[in-house]
């Protein structure tokens, strides 16, 4: 099962027609499934009135107003006040003036995005670092109760986040970790470590033991062999695992919304509460969503080969 057998078909080769029909159906599904996402990306370039026009507009005059509104905060002013101001400097300011508003400052989007980056990368480094050590130990040594420990590690991932959040909330309140980046990094590390250990154990299992044994015969200690032989061999697996951890931490919402509110808030709880005058500012929300999704789209393409392994905790390997 671990190797996908894809030798050339003989009598079971699908006919040209069946291939053509299959291709057509799959392409159709792909186009339908990508439409909602494409629509959100387009909405980021619409004006607020185009975004909620009836019927929905496919063709529209593109504008960067959504992105301006995403990055700035504005306030409405009287015509007299506006007339007395010096001419608008930036493009965003001009657009705000056109609606008799002035830009008064930066929005919280960039700080939230930065929080997301710091927390995602911080927790990824920790969970892959601890994970690769534990995975190596589980892969190479006789650990008592190995299977039970591995199952325990996996089962921590199965807990509903809200159930975990109740005591974490109380614990963090006591320790002063609520709404701190450190608290979120530790929490995401704990959640991701199960995935890291399981995936990395699979990758390390595939590296022949003989490599390290040869190195140790040559005089390396076990630790040197781990560092200079196993780690370089496991690079692909480590990178794939790291990307999976990054994606989880980047996308996480339940813990973030319950345990952070300001200082350490990440982007997922922030994007839905971007509001303009009179309700949600959809072009700004769409712009924020688009920027937030770009890293994920890049990762999806990078991860294609290892996707299956990652989403099944290493149960299915191709």
């Amino acid at each position, binding site marked *: *099962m671990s190797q*996908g057998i894809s030798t050339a*078909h*003989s*009598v*079971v080769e*699908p006919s040209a027609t*069946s291939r053509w029909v*299959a*291709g057509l159906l*799959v392409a159709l599904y*792909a186009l339908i*499934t990508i439409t*909602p*996402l494409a*629509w*959100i990306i387009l909405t980021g370039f619409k004006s607020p009135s185009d975004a*909620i026009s009836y019927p*929905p507009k496919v063709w529209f005059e593109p504008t960067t107003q959504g992105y301006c509104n995403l990055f700035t905060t504005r306030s409405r002013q009287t015509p007299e006040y506006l007339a007395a101001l010096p001419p608008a400097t930036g493009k965003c300011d001009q657009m705000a003036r056109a609606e008799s508003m002035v830009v008064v400052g930066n929005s919280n989007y960039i700080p939230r995005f930065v929080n997301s980056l710091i927390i995602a990368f911080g927790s990824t480094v920790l969970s892959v670092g*601890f*994970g690769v*050590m*534990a995975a190596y*130990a*589980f892969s190479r*040594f006789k650990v008592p109760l190995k299977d039970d*420990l591995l199952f325990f*590690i996996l*089962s921590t991932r*199965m807990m*509903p*986040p*809200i*159930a*975990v*959040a*109740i*005591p974490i909330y109380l*614990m963090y309140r006591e320790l002063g970790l609520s709404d701190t980046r450190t608290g979120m990094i*530790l929490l995401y*590390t*704990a959640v991701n470590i199960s995935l890291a250990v399981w995936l990395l154990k699979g990758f390390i299992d595939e590296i022949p033991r003989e490599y390290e044994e040869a190195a*140790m015969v040559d005089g390396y200690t*076990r630790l040197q062999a781990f560092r200079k032989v196993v780690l370089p061999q496991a690079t692909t697996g480590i990178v794939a695992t790291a990307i999976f951890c990054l994606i989880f931490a980047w996308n996480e*919402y339940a813990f973030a919304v319950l345990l952070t509110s300001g200082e350490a808030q990440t982007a*997922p*709880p922030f*994007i*839905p509460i971007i509001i303009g005058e009179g309700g*949600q500012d*959809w072009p700004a*929300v769409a712009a924020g*969503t688009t920027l937030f*999704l770009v890293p994920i789209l890049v990762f*999806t*393409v990078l991860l*294609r080969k290892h996707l*299956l392994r990652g*989403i099944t905790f290493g149960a299915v390997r*191709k």
Partner: protein
Amino acid sequence: MSTKAPLADRIAKATPAPLASRMRGLSDRSIAWLFIGPTMALLLAINIFPLIWTIKLSFTNYRANRPNAEVSDIGIDNYVSVLTDPDIWIAMQTTAHFVFWTIALQTLIGFSLAFLLDRKFRGHGFWTTLILIPMMLSPAVVGNFWAFLYQPQTGLFNAVVAALTGVSPSSFSMLGEVKLAPWAIIIVDTWMWTPYVMLICLAGLRSIPDYIYEAAEVDRASRLRQFWSITLPMVLPFIMLAVLFRGIENFKMFDMVNLLTSGGPGSTTELASITLKREAFEKWRTGYSSAFAIILFVAVFGMANMYVKALNYVKTR
């Protein structure tokens, strides 16, 4: 005699080197514990200790918003009230409906797509990548933008349904109507997670060796017979794996639905996790919600056990 001495010499010279180097470093046993230690310490601090705390709280009437109020031990009262609370049972039914239909639709569509992709037509890699995108997105962000697509009158979803069926786009509201809201969350979850089932099914289909089909062809088994007797049984363990993973994930579903409907209208889409969040972080009934959390733990843990058994089955096959 003269030939033995140099050999013994050589052996004596050759053996101590690796032994000595191993003695210089740490023993394997201490490395094992040193390497597993940090992971275990972290999991004990952030998973097990809180879990024990939850169990302790579940036997009290503690409320997190009144840290100074007197806490008294009330035995299993919380468990009794959770299990006899009709609202909890409604939430469990809502969750079951959600889990059942999302899995049914995702398996059906996911398997069909995998079956088609297995034809290996030109450009199948490109289309696969495109199809996979939804499952990589943040569920919260997805819930949020689907709320925009579901807007009556101005939303894309209503416009498309109106164009296809001829009903007025403002005549229905996916998120506002009691009858439609449970299906609104099922549609979004299916959109998002069908690729997941598809990917696992595809691995299953690709794992079937060609010679089995060739043998069936020699035996003149019909294409339909081949499908029922070869394809389906051989892909079944993979489908089971996907179903169990999706089952566990959707049983604890929170983020996407919280953003899309936050349980409404009324409590028609209030899944177990959303009820739990309301009890714990809005009504602040910490003791009561801890008991509910433990009950959910046990349920998920049971499913996790089933998962590991299925996983071993798939692996040993």
